[in-house]
């Protein structure tokens, strides 16, 4: 039974547009090689981080939702993340049935917010 996974990763902002694109492509075909089917892919683009990571205060967010039969797919994806130094941070989560239903609703814009994580919370300096 194929499980649903959702991965969010942040690329360093110093990359050019082309580098960003092919970094995302690279991860997508890592998934394809593991014969995972990509359900949805979102690019939230350059966003302000809530705290600096590696001395940078903005990051290039993207999200990939995929289904995979066996869990070695996630292991392969994560070693790929660790190898690539363009990736500042990543998080892969599995989706239970409520999560899957929520993702579908989100995709159809039921929450009428296209980029739902619109912008991270900025701490207002007094």
């Amino acid at each position: 039974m194929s499980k649903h996974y959702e991965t969010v990763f942040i690329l360093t902002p110093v990359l050019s547009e082309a580098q960003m694109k092919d970094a995302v492509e690279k991860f997508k075909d890592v998934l394809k090689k593991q014969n995972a089917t990509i359900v949805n892919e979102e690019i939230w683009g350059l966003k302000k981080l809530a705290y600096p990571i590696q001395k940078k205060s903005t990051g290039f967010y993207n999200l990939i939702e995929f289904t995979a039969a066996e869990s070695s797919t996630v292991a392969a994806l994560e070693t790929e993340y660790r190898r690539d130094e363009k990736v500042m941070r990543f998080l892969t989560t599995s989706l239970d049935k409520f999560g899957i239903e929520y993702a579908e609703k989100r995709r159809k814009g039921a929450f009428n917010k296209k980029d739902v994580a619109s912008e991270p919370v900025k701490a207002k300096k007094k």
Partner: protein
Amino acid sequence: MTLVNEPVVSKQQENRKKYCRFRKSGIRYIDYKDPNFLLKFINEQGKILPRRITGTSWKFQNKVSQAVKRARHLAILPYVTDGLK
């Protein structure tokens, strides 16, 4: 005629029945990518609000704290800050 210095304690306000907002509104999945929703569960310094204040049930408090911790990992929420809201 109430005494002047007698503190007027309004009965309903004091023991207002706390309820789990997730069970009432039927939310089953708490998304860690949505900061506006998670803001309701953290205080000014970015700390997670305890159950005795929000009144959420144990099951959903776990989901909320897991979602907040994931959001913090992804720098969607800050770990510690002041004057967050």
